[in-house]
Structures are given as C-alpha cells and as structure tokens.
C-alpha cells in the first residue's frame, strides 16, 4: 500500500523546510560577506603598503643632492622608519643614476622604469626567494649642468601584509559565523511563527466533536483561505451524505417496518376470530416471525450505530443514575405485562464520560434481555454502586440464568444461550453492550448470583 522511498525527512515538515531554506540563504550570505570583507581588507592592507613604499621612495628621492657635479645621497632614517610600521618585514632598496647603482642592492632591478617624475611603477616580484612589493620613482638631478635621471626603488617583503589580511579575514569569518548562527535561530523562529496560524487552524479542526460539521468561520491568513473553504465544502458534502444515509435508513426502516406492523396487527386481529388450534398456532408463528425480524433489524441497527459512534466517541458527561431511571421507566410497561417489577436502586452524581446514546443502548439491551427471559411475577433489580474508581450498573434477574455455558462466549456475535427455547431474539444484545463498554474503557461482567437463580449482568465504567 505505502509508496516506496518516502520523501526525505526534510520535506515532511514545512517548518523544517522553511528553516533549512532560510539557513541556506544565510549561509550563502555569510560566506559572501566573509569573502568580500576579507578581500577588501587585503586590498586595503596592500594599498597601505604601497602608499608607505611610495612615501619612502619619495623621501629618499627628496634626499638626492648634487655636489660639484656628483650626485650624493644621505639615506634619511625616516624613509625606513615608516616602513617599520608594517610588521617585521625586510626592506630592500636601490638608487641608480642613469643605470649606475649609487647605493643599495645591485640585483633589485625594477621590471619597468617610470618615464616621468610623476610616474610611479609598482610591481610585485620574487626577490631572493621571497615575494616582495616594489615601488620605483624617478627624479631628475642636475649633475653640473647635466640633468641625470635617478631611479629610486624601495621593496619590502609581504609577510606583514599577509598577516594583517589573515587577521582581518579571521575576524570577518568569526563575524560571519555569528551572523549565520543568529540567522538560523531567527529562521527557526520565523518558520514557527509563520506556521502558527496553520497549527491553530489544525487545532480548531481537531477540537471539534465527531458530529460537528458546521463550517469553519475562522479569521485565517489569505494562504489558508483556500484550505478553509475546501474543508468547509468537504464537511458540507460529508454532512449531506450522512443526512442522505440517515434519511435512507429511516426510509428503509419505514418501508419494512410499516408492512410488518400491518401483518402483525392483522394476525393479532385474526387470532380473535379463528377458533381452530392449528390455525391459531400458524398465526402465532407469523407473529413470532414478525417479532424476530423486527428485533433483528433493531439490533443490527444498534450494532451499526455502536460501530459508527465508537470510532469517534463523544465525551459528554453522562449521569448513570438518570440514564438508569430513564431506561427503567421506558421498559417498565413492557415488564408489567408479565407482572415483572423492576426495582431501581440508584446513586447520586454517578458521572461517567462518554456517549449517552451508546450507554443507553447498552443498558437497554441488557435490561430488555432480562425482561424477556424472566418468568412472570418476578423482580428485576437494577442497582448502581460506586466501586473505588468505577461505577457498577448491575441488572439482576430471577430468570433462567446462563445455563452453565462458558460466560465469555455469550457476548459473541449472534450467540445465544442454549436455554432460550422459543423466545425471540437475535443474539446481539450482549455483544452490543460489551462493545459499548469496551469503547468506554469499561467492561461487561456476567455472573450467576450466589443462590444460583437468575442472571447478573454488570456494566462497569470508569467514574468521571
């Protein structure tokens, strides 16, 4: 029946799905922001190094002098001091006039040379095994009357820059992780709060009684409006179909029971005019057959009602005392026909939780059995007693009893005792009672009184 490969856990819950989606977006944003922040930081660090290198080279260039046609240079300390600002990096320099190195490292050769004094060449290259950043500026110094172009190059290794970049990037990473964590929390909250109307809607539907098919008139978000209106349409159709089947049952019962009633009434009338014993016996058989079919129909209907209502058991407060009084009163005229008296010994506030209709069905079936199987001029005792956490509604008669059969078997469907003789019955009475009690977490107890006469049926229900 169930489909193979169920959808992954994630898609079973809209809340999880929403949270995950929002978290995923947050993750992408966090990574993106980390990447952007750290690359900006690296760029900023590099630019700072470049600016300092340019300043350093310019300072050196400013110190160039010409003395009697010879270009001289006294390296200013400040030019290197400012470079110390960036970490523990090594600094290289080279000052060359017209291709001749005046001072510095001979092998620090700029890849290209600036063409004008305003021109600055910045380059990255490998020097003595380390990557370095190099800046070259150009100055023209008058040696005698001769203008001589002097190239001042200053280079610095990049470890400091890398370290600063790394530090900034680490901070950015930590911030991103924090941002992500916050975003996940907010996503879960957002998912829950946006699903809240759905949950409360579901609760409103769940809280309804089994027979409450009125349309839902809740204020719901627009997204839930289609769900609410289609639920309402479904309930309307359900209500219609329940009404139709109820009408059908009523109609069917009417169609069957009215002619049966006619047959029974005519047969009873005929008994008053017919004299011959054999004919009278035939009429009695007709009447018995009518009674049997009518009784079976009632009990089958009762049984169907039990199955239907027990599925979605109502939880009303039912007063067993009132129920016993009502059922007893309604069966008293029937009992009186056989001069059977029904004694009722009731209790106050005998409250249980359940379906009043079903409980009445159960008691009615039990009491009806007793009236049916009791001999004339006897007494039936209906008593209601409290037994710790349960109520015990007991029907005790002085009838033929249970004839020594295993008692549990008597509640089986269509089972009847071996001693019923010609008494009309379908064998569903005790089954109905037992099913009702089971649905109410109670039980039906059959026993034979100590003196061995009659039957004792107890309906045991948990007290409310």
């Amino acid at each position: 029946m169930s489909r193979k490969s169920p959808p992954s856990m994630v898609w079973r819950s809209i809340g999880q799905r929403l949270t995950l989606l929002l978290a995923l977006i947050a993750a992408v944003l966090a990574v993106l922001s980390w990447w952007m922040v750290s690359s900006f930081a690296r760029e900023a660090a590099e630019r700072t190094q470049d600016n300092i290198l340019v300043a350093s080279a310019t300072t050196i260039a400013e110190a160039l002098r010409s003395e009697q046609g010879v270009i001289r240079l006294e390296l200013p300390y400040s030019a290197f001091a400012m470079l110390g600002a960036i970490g523990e990096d090594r600094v290289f320099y080279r000052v060359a006039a017209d291709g001749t190195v005046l001072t510095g490292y001979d092998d620090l050769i700029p890849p290209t040379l600036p063409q004008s004094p305003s021109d600055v060449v910045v380059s990255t290259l490998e020097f003595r095994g380390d990557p370095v950043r190099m800046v070259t500026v150009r100055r023209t110094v008058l040696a005698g009357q001769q203008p001589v172009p002097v190239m001042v190059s200053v280079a610095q290794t990049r470890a400091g820059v890398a370290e600063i970049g790394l530090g900034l990037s680490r901070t950015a990473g930590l911030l991103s992780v924090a941002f992500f964590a916050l975003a996940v929390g907010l996503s879960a909250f957002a998912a829950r709060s946006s699903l809240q109307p759905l949950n409360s809607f579901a609760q409103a539907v769940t809280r309804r009684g089994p027979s409450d098919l009125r349309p839902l008139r809740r204020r719901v978000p627009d997204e839930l409006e289609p769900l609410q209106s289609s639920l309402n349409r479904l309930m309307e159709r359900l209500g219609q179909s329940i009404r139709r089947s109820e009408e059908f049952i009523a109609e069917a019962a009417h169609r069957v029971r009215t002619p049966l009633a006619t047959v029974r009434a005519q047969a009873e009338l005929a008994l008053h005019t017919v004299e011959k014993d054999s004919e009278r016996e035939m009429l009695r058989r007709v009447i018995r057959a009518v009674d049997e079919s009518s009784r079976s129909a009632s009990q089958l209907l009762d049984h169907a009602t039990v199955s239907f209502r027990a599925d979605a058991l109502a939880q009303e407060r039912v007063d067993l005392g009132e129920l016993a009084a009502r059922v007893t009163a309604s069966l008293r005229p029937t009992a009186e026909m056989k001069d059977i008296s029904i004694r009722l010994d009731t209790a106050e506030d005998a409250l249980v939780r359940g379906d009043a209709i079903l409980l009445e069905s159960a008691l009615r079936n039990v009491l009806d059995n007793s009236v049916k199987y009791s001999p004339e001029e006897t007494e039936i005792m209906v008593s209601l007693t409290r037994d710790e956490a349960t109520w015990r509604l007991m029907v005790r008669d002085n009838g033929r009893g249970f004839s020594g059969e295993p008692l549990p078997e008597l509640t089986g469907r269509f089972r009847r005792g071996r001693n019923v003789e010609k008494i009309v019955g379908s064998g569903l009475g005790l089954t109905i009672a037992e099913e009702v009690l089971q649905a109410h977490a109670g039980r039906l107890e059959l026993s034979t009184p100590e003196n061995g006469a009659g039957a004792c049926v107890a309906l045991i229900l948990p007290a409310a």
Partner: protein
Amino acid sequence: MRFLLVEDNAELGEAIVARLSLDGHAVDHASTLGEARDWLAVAEYDLMLLDVMLPDGDGRSFLRETRTTERLPVIVLTARSQVSDRVDTLDLGADDYLTKPFDFGELEARCRAVLRRRGTPAPTVIPLGTAQFDPSSGTLTHAGESQPLRNRELRLLEVFARNQGQILPKSQLLDRLFSQDAEVSENAIEVYIGRLRKRLSETGVQIETVRGVGYRMVTP
C-alpha cells in the same frame, strides 16, 4: 377511552382501529397531519397515537406544534428503532415511544402507563356489582377499600367487564394476556381466573366456567 390515531398506512390504521375498538375504545383515524388538526379542533381525546412519517409533513414538527397548545398525551409510533431517535422524540415532548411492529398488549400497557403518569382523571369507572372498577388506574374499589390489581388480573378483568354476560373462549383470553412469543398452556388462564374470583368474592359478581368453551362474567 378516546384515541386519535394519526397513521398514513390505511391497512395498519384500520387494524389498529379495529383492535382498539375490540377493547371498547373509541378511535378517530387521521391519515394526514391536516386531518389530525381538523379532528383536534372538534373533539377531545384522552391520547394521541402519532406516526412520525406522514405524507404532508414530519410528525415531529407536528408534535412540537401541538405541545405548545395541547396537554394531550402523545405516544409516537415509529419505524425508527434507534435510541437516538427515541431520545429526540421524547425531547420533543412525546410521552412515550413505540417501535413498529408492536404488540397491542404493549401498546395498551404503555397507554395506561402514560395516563397514570400524567395523572389524567379516570375517564370511565365500570361498576361491577357492588364494586367500582377503574381500568386506567388499575384498581378495584369495594366497600370504600381499593385494591390494586396486578397487570394480568387487570387486563383479564377489563376484558370481562367490557363483555359482561358473554361467553369468552379460553383461547381468546389467552391471547389477551400473554404475548405471542411465550409458550403458554391453556391452563395458565385458570390461575388468573382463580385470583379474580377471589378478588370479586364479596361483590356479587361471578365468573362462571362454561365447560368446554370458556368463561362468562355474570353480574347480579
């Protein structure tokens, strides 16, 4: 007693009328709610027997309508046997409820129970010799002392009281007294005859045995 029967099925209605008439009751038969309203406007009844499914409407709404104006006791005759229907019907103000098909003995017992519960004054007291017999309360009053009768004694006495001087066959009395699903021998009737004779011993009323046929009540 006077009954109003509201039942649309003609055959069933006639059978009920015939059977109630046998017991000496007067019955008017309406087959629609409209007819029932007409009868109620012109006559007084002791009890109404009301079918709930009628061609011109639902007997239950009729019940609600009459409850507001009449104090007339109502027994609903219905084809619906479920407890929920019974509860609904009684909630609407019916005094009792009888599922079709029904035993006339039971109908009679329920009518009596309803009238007793309602405290309706006895419509007819039948004089029996020096005693007064009230079938609706089930008492026999003699010399200022009233004794309650058991149900079967009461029914048997009622049959005799309404058919004074007539010979009533045993088999017919048996049918009146016992429901058809019980297996009873004709001798069972003798027990009740014996009891009635005892109760009537000082009233001058006698129940004679007509050998081979049945019994006859003779009043002085």
